C-alpha cells in the first residue's frame, strides 16, 4: 500500500497546481498507468490483449480505456480492501450484483479534485453561499458518489443556512419555498443543487401551485445526472427555460455537472443559455472520442464514444470508456446521449429488449 503514497502525493500536488503542460500531464498519466498496470492483474490482462504495455504506452491517449461495465464485472482496484474505504456504486439497476463499484481507500484525492473544480466552475466569485440540496444526504445514500459530492459542496462551500430538502417522503417543498422566499427578501444570492429529476419535480410543483420566485442576482443552480426514469422527460431547452423562468435564475447560471461513479473528477458547462452546452473538465482530466469497436480515436471533428483519462482515479483505472456519445467542440465536448441499447434493425432480438423482458 505504501508504494502508492508518493504517487498519490504527486497527484494531489498536480491537482493543486494551476494548470499543466501536455508533457506534465503525460508524465503523470504514464506513471499512474505503470502503477495500475502493475497492481491490477485483470487490468494488465486487458491491456496486454490490446498490445498495450508499459513500454508501448507513450502518451495518455495510448492508455487502453476500460469500459464502465468492467466496474460491474470485477473489483477494479490496486490497493487491498480496507475497513475504512469508501465504495461508490452506480445506480440504475435493481439488482445489487450488477451495480458498478468504485473503491476509494480514502477520499483525499476525490475531495481535492471536487473542491478545486467546483470552486472555479460553480461558485463564481463567492466563497460560500446558502445552499439548498435536492438530493438525499450521505447517511441515506452512503454508496452514492453524488450524495458525497453534494455533501462536500455543502460543507466546503455552503454557509450555515444551507440545508437538505429531501426527506424519505420526497422533496420538502414547503421548507424549500420558505428558504427561497427568505433569499428573495434578503436579496442574497442562493444556490440550489440536485439531481436533474428533482428539479423536474420542483418545476411541476411550482406549476401546480402557480408560484414562481425571483432569486437575487448571483443565485445559481446546479443539476446533474439526467432524469433516470425518476421524473417525466423534459427536453433540455424546456428544462432550462422552465427552471430559469420559475426561479428567476438566468440560464447562464444554470450549470449542469456531468459526472460518473467511475470517475473522481467532474465536468461542467458554462451555463445553458443554449443547449446542448459544451462540457469541459480541469487540467487533471482529458477526454478523447473513440470508435468503441476498435478503441481507436475517431477522425477529428467526428462524434464518438467518450473516453476519459482522469488522474484522480488513482485506485481503479485512470482511463475509462463511457457509453456516452460525444461531439468535439472548441471548449470541450457536447454530450449527445447514451450509445447504450442499440435497437435491432431487423426482427432479431436485441440485448436490450431481452434484458428488459427478464427484469422483474
Amino acid at each position: 500500500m505504501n508504494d502508492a503514497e508518493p504517487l498519490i502525493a504527486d497527484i494531489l500536488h498536480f491537482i493543486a497546481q494551476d494548470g499543466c503542460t501536455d508533457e506534465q500531464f503525460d508524465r503523470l498519466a504514464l506513471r499512474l498507468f505503470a502503477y495500475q498496470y502493475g497492481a491490477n492483474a485483470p487490468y494488465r490482462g486487458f491491456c496486454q490483449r490490446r498490445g498495450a504495455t508499459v513500454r508501448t504506452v507513450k502518451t495518455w491517449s495510448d492508455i487502453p480505456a476500460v469500459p464502465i461495465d468492467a466496474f460491474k464485472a470485477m473489483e477494479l482496484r490496486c490497493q487491498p480492501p480496507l475497513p475504512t474505504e469508501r465504495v461508490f456504486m452506480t445506480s440504475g439497476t435493481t439488482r445489487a450484483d450488477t451495480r458498478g463499484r468504485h473503491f476509494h481507500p480514502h477520499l483525499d484525492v476525490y475531495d481535492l479534485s471536487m473542491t478545486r473544480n467546483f470552486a472555479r466552475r460553480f461558485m463564481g466569485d463567492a466563497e460560500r453561499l446558502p445552499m439548498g440540496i435536492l438530493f438525499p444526504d450521505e447517511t441515506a445514500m452512503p454508496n452514492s458518489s453524488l450524495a458525497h459530492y453534494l455533501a462536500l459542496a455543502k460543507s466546503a462551500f455552503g454557509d450555515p443556512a444551507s440545508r437538505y430538502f429531501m426527506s424519505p417522503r420526497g422533496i420538502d417543498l414547503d421548507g424549500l419555498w420558505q428558504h427561497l422566499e427568505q433569499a428573495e427578501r434578503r436579496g442574497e444570492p442562493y444556490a440550489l443543487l440536485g439531481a436533474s429529476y428533482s428539479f423536474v419535480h420542483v418545476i411541476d410543483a411550482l406549476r401546480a401551485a402557480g408560484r414562481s420566485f425571483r432569486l437575487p442576482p448571483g443565485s445559481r443552480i446546479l443539476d446533474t445526472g439526467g432524469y433516470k426514469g425518476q421524473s417525466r422527460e423534459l427536453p433540455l431547452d424546456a428544462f432550462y427555460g422552465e427552471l430559469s423562468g420559475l426561479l428567476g435564475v438566468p440560464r447562464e447560471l444554470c450549470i449542469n455537472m456531468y459526472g460518473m461513479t467511475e470517475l473522481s473528477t467532474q465536468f461542467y458547462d458554462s451555463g445553458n443559455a443554449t443547449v446542448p452546452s459544451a462540457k469541459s473538465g480541469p487540467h487533471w482530466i482529458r477526454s478523447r472520442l473513440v470508435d468503441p469497436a476498435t478503441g481507436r480515436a475517431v477522425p477529428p471533428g467526428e462524434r464518438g464514444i467518450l473516453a476519459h483519462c482522469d488522474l484522480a482515479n488513482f485506485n481503479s483505472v485512470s482511463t475509462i470508456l463511457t457509453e456516452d456519445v460525444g461531439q468535439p467542440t472548441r471548449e470541450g465536448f457536447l454530450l449527445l446521449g447514451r450509445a447504450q441499447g442499440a435497437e435491432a434493425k431487423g426482427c432479431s432480438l436485441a440485448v436490450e429488449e431481452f434484458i428488459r423482458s427478464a427484469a422483474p
Partner: protein
Amino acid sequence: MNVHKVQAGYLPGLERAQVQWHTLAFEQDGRRLEVAVPVLSAPQMDALAERVRRAAARHLKPMPVSDIIAVIDRAMARLLDRDDPYRREADALLPLVSGYDAEMVRLGLTGFFKTFRAPQLHRFVAQDFANPKVLDGFQPAAKGGAVRAHGPRLLAHSWAGNVPALALWSLVCGLLVKAGNIGKLPSAEPLFAGWFARLLAEVHPPLADCLAVVWWRGAGDAEAAALYAQADTVVAYGGNDALHAIQRRLPVTTRFLAYGHKLGFGVVSAMALDALKAPALARRAAWDVMRYDQQGCYSPHIFYVQRGGQVTPREFAGYLAGELANLQRRYPRRALDLPESAAVAKWRQSIEWRLPAPGTEGAADHDPLIGDPAAAWSVAYTDDAQALAPTALQRSIVVAGIDALDAVAPAVAGAGAYLQSAGIAAAPDELYRLAEQLGAVGVTRVSAIGSMSVPEAGWHHDGRFNLLDLVRMTEIEQSAEAAAEPFAPYEP
C-alpha cells in the same frame, strides 16, 4: 455528393400534391438517397381505407385464388429478372437504405422471391387449407353442410426493420385471402412495399386500388387511428414494446396478429463432426450468421455443439471463425453506427472480462474470443451449455460445447416466448428426439443449418397459420341445408 431522390409509398386515388411528404435520408460511401414518404391526414387515410376496401370487395374478392396466384407469379417473374426495371431499382437502392452488401442483398432477394412463385404459393395455400377452394366459395364440409373462408375486408400491416423486402410476406398473405391491404412502411426500409404494389397494378390493373402503402412517424397519430379504426385485422412486426403500443390502440374486436422479435440457435450433434463433414457444416453455419448480419428473426445467436465427435466444439468454433472471415471478404458486414458498434464492443468485453490473463497457464487454449478484436465478426467459445441469450448481432455468435444433445432444451427454455428457429445437424433419430424436446419448450421451426435464414415456402411463421389466422369461416350447417330443401320450387 451524388444525391438520388425517390418517392416511396403507393396511394391509389391521391395525387402527389395532395399529401404531405417527409424525407428519409440514407447515406453510404458518398452516395445519398432521399426517400420521400407520404404523410396522410386522418381524413385522407379514412378515404384511402374506404377506397381500398371497396376495390378489394369488387376486384379481388371475386378472383379465384388460383388467378391471384397467377398474378403474383407474374410479378415475381419480373422481380426475378435482373434486367427488369423494378429489380434493377431494388438491386441498386436496397443496399443503400439497408447498408447491407449489395451482393448479399441480391442473393437474398433472389432466394426470397423464388419462394413466392406459383408452385410455392399453391403449396402455401394448400398448407393451410385442405381444400383451397374454400377461399373462392362454399365447399362441402366433412362434418356435413358447407364452409367458406373470408379474408379481412381491410388488412392493415405495420412492417418493421430493415431486412429488405420483408413486407412481401404479409402482403402476399393478404392478397391470397383477398383482403384489401394497407401497409405502413418501416423507416429503415421504406421502398420495397411501394414498388411491389405498383408492380402488381402494372401486372394486373384491376388490383391497382386493392392495396396502398403509407408511412407515419413513430407510432403514428390520428392517421394511424383512422386506419386502425377501419381495419378488421392488423398484422404487425416489431419489438414487444412497439407491438404493445399498437395493440393498445386497437378496438377489442379487431384481430391483432403480432410477430415479435425472435432468438434463433443451432445444434450440432457429434455425429456431424467428422473431419470431412465438420468444415462444410461450419461453412453453412457461417452463412446463417452472415445473412443480413443476423437481423432476421430466424438468425442464430448460439450454436450448441456436442463433444465426442472427431472435431471438438472448440475446433468447430475455429472453423466457423474462418468461414466468417472468408464471408467478410465476399459479403462485408454493413457499416455500423456508433450505438451498434458500442453494443458489439460491450458484448465482446463482457466476455473478455471472464478471461484469464494472457501468460497464465493455458490461457491461449481457453481464450473465449476467437479472432482479432477489430474483425467484423466475433466468435465466442464457452465450455458449458450457456443459456440462450442474444448476442450483439452483426455477426457475433457463441459456440457452446455440450456433452449431450439433451442439454439444449433446458438451455433454451428460459427464452420461451422468444424462440422460433432452430438449425439442427444431427442423425435422423437425434433430429426427431431434439425436435420433440425443443418444440415442447417453444421452438416452432426446425431447419437444416445453412437454411435457417431461408424459411421454406408455406412455413408456419412463429408456429402460426399465416393464412388461416387471417380468415373467418362461414359455415352453412346441415340443418340449414336440410331446412332449405322443402322451399325449393321443384318440391311439391
